[in-house]
């Protein structure tokens, strides 16, 4: 029998949420520093209000929920799901105070989009937003890409508790023997790439005549949102703002690195370069990129709508790679994307739905699961071809040789079905509100797979219910469902008890 939720559960959850509140407050010191450097005092006040709110709530929760016993899996999952929801609300506060949002819901949409590394935006007049607020938008992407819990993990959690929370955030690859050292490794990789990537982008921008400070600010923002496959940009034109093919090429490299599993990064960092060639997930990622691009090409039926072949490739491949890795960067207008042939749009939808690698910053079903289905199918066919008494095993190489078992396939299948249902639910909701089915499906997949490409539906004028549903899609898609399901069960049980 499944045990009921007890008062202890609430105490444990409240205690750790208190810690998350404190962590979110501390993190906001960074945009305050940016505000001071850029002499943006109005922004500093916005963040001051937000920090005080976080610290107050955090202190109250920590006081009334003293240090609990060790976490169990269920509590870990609830903490993860609630942390993301709370992070969305408190991080939306400085955004809303900036005056660039029509309502608090829009600000919440923006912060969930950043944390879930989606990239759909509802901000108004982005081009006149303060550096501090803009930096905060991108910092949220950086934090969310690694995982909100991962931030707190390094500082606030005990070893045993850490693992239960770590897995709740849709990460099940223990690169190193312990979750905290894994979290530290992920942060080390991210910070190293952050320095290299930001300077590389800044260098390209300086070549185009930008002064160093502007170039480094843009480089930093674009890297944070690119590496974490979020797709935010400091200007409303997104990547189109820079008018630079070289800049776009650098962003492609960054997003491909972001969509690659941290396990592969670890292998490369430790000198095992062969992993890049041998890892089954990397191979499938390359294969699906190739195949979905073929679909896009067939969709255009050889009609080079962007002029010459290079321009055609530049624009079509950029949208495809952006969709597949889940970054959502774009070098065309959403109204242009909306006029693409239906088959080309379907190609991008498939790419978005598949997503990047497991344990990367990308969203979607993940190529790993797709590969697993392929291997499982191959195993079943072989089983049928051999005598009944034969024992057939199928392996794949993912940092080591792994044998496929039924449990692995079953879990992958459940998550995949959940994703498909989520994609369809958003599409049906869009259709219900009067948008076409294909554009609705595109936008829904973009939200649930945490991509951020848009055909123009995501707008401040869209119905509030759709905004809320997209927030749910981003949240559920990022956490890969289980944490949310357990939270819903917890809430239902708590309400029923009363």
């Amino acid at each position: 029998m499944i045990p009921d939720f007890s008062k202890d559960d609430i105490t444990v959850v409240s205690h750790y949420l208190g810690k998350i509140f404190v962590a979110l407050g501390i993190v906001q010191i960074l945009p305050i520093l940016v505000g001071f450097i850029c002499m943006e005092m109005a922004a500093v006040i916005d963040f001051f209000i937000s920090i005080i709110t976080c610290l107050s709530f955090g202190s109250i929760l920590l006081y009334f929920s003293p240090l609990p016993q060790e976490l169990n899996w269920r509590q870990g999952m609830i903490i993860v799901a609630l942390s993301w929801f709370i992070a969305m609300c408190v991080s939306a506060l400085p955004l809303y105070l900036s005056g660039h949002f029509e309502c608090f819901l829009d600000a919440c949409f923006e912060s969930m989009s950043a944390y879930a590394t989606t990239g759909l935006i509802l901000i108004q007049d982005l081009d006149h937003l303060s550096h501090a607020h803009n930096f905060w938008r991108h910092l949220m992407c950086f934090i969310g890409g690694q995982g909100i819990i991962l931030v707190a993990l390094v500082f606030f959690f005990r070893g045993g508790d850490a693992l239960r929370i770590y897995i709740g955030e849709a990460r099940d690859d223990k690169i190193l023997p312990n979750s905290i050292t894994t979290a530290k490794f992920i942060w080390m990789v991210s910070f190293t790439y952050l320095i290299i990537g930001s300077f590389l982008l800044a260098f390209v921008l300086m070549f185009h005549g930008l002064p160093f400070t502007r170039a480094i600010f843009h480089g930093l923002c674009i890297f944070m949102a690119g590496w974490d496959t979020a797709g935010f940009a400091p200007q409303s034109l997104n990547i189109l703002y820079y008018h630079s093919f070289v800049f776009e090429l650098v962003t492609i490299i960054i997003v491909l690195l972001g969509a690659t599993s941290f396990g592969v990064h670890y292998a490369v960092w430790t000198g095992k370069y062969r992993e890049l060639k041998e890892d089954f997930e990397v191979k499938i990622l390359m294969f699906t990129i190739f195949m979905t691009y073929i679909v896009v090409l067939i969709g255009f039926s050889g009609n080079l709508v962007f002029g010459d072949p290079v321009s055609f490739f530049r624009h079509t491949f950029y949208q495809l790679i952006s969709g597949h890795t889940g970054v959502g960067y774009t070098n065309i207008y959403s109204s242009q994307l909306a006029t693409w042939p239906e088959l080309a749009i379907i190609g991008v939808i498939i790419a978005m739905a598949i997503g990047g690698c497991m344990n990367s910053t990308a969203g979607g079903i993940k190529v790993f699961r797709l590969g697993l289905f392929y291997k499982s199918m191959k195993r079943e066919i072989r089983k049928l071809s051999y005598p009944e008494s034969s024992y057939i095993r199928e392996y794949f190489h993912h940092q080591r040789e792994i044998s496929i078992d039924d449990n692995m396939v079953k879990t992958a299948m459940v998550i995949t079905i959940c994703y498909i249902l989520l994609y369809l639910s958003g599409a049906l909701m869009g259709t219900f509100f009067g948008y076409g089915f294909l554009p609705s499906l595109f936008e829904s997949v973009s939200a649930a797979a945490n991509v951020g490409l848009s055909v123009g539906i995501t707008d401040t004028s869209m119905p509030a219910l759709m905004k809320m549903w997209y927030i749910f899609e981003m949240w559920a898609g990022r956490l890969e469902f289980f944490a949310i399901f357990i939270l819903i069960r917890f809430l239902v049980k708590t309400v029923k008890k009363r």
Partner: protein
Amino acid sequence: MRIIRIVISGMAVFCIAGWAQTVRALITNPDMFDEKTVIVEGELIGDIFKGRSGFWVNMLDSGMAIGVWFHDSEKEKIKFLGKYGVVGDFVRITGVFHKRCIQHSGDMDIHASTLEILKRGTEKKEEIPVEKVIFAFSLGVVSLAAIGILHLLSRKESLPHNR
């Protein structure tokens, strides 16, 4: 009949090329304006990006921005580019709109032939609402007091009772 047709097409060309278009109209109906001379008005924003024998500046109008390609000779005219705390130069641009510019790898852009400054941009003094300052200050004081009290209480509770 021929005269009427000439008059109608003349009027259409006048409508498209003679009056200022919004950037939104260009972006949402690119086929209508493709390769035609257009007049657009808006605020220059962001940064100047150097290119070969020219430069890029993005122009914002009706909530949408578009890249405008200028000849180097126009650079001196631009003094303010819109960003936080700065209102960019409000300009009128006459130029050719490209749905897919061949020169710039298929980008949607405008190649400006003339640039007219309608209103010079300014640096805005940052306005901080007094109510916000008072609210932040009060919140800070109350919260710090509450956090302090909670901290003292928790310390007191953690002390051994037999002291």
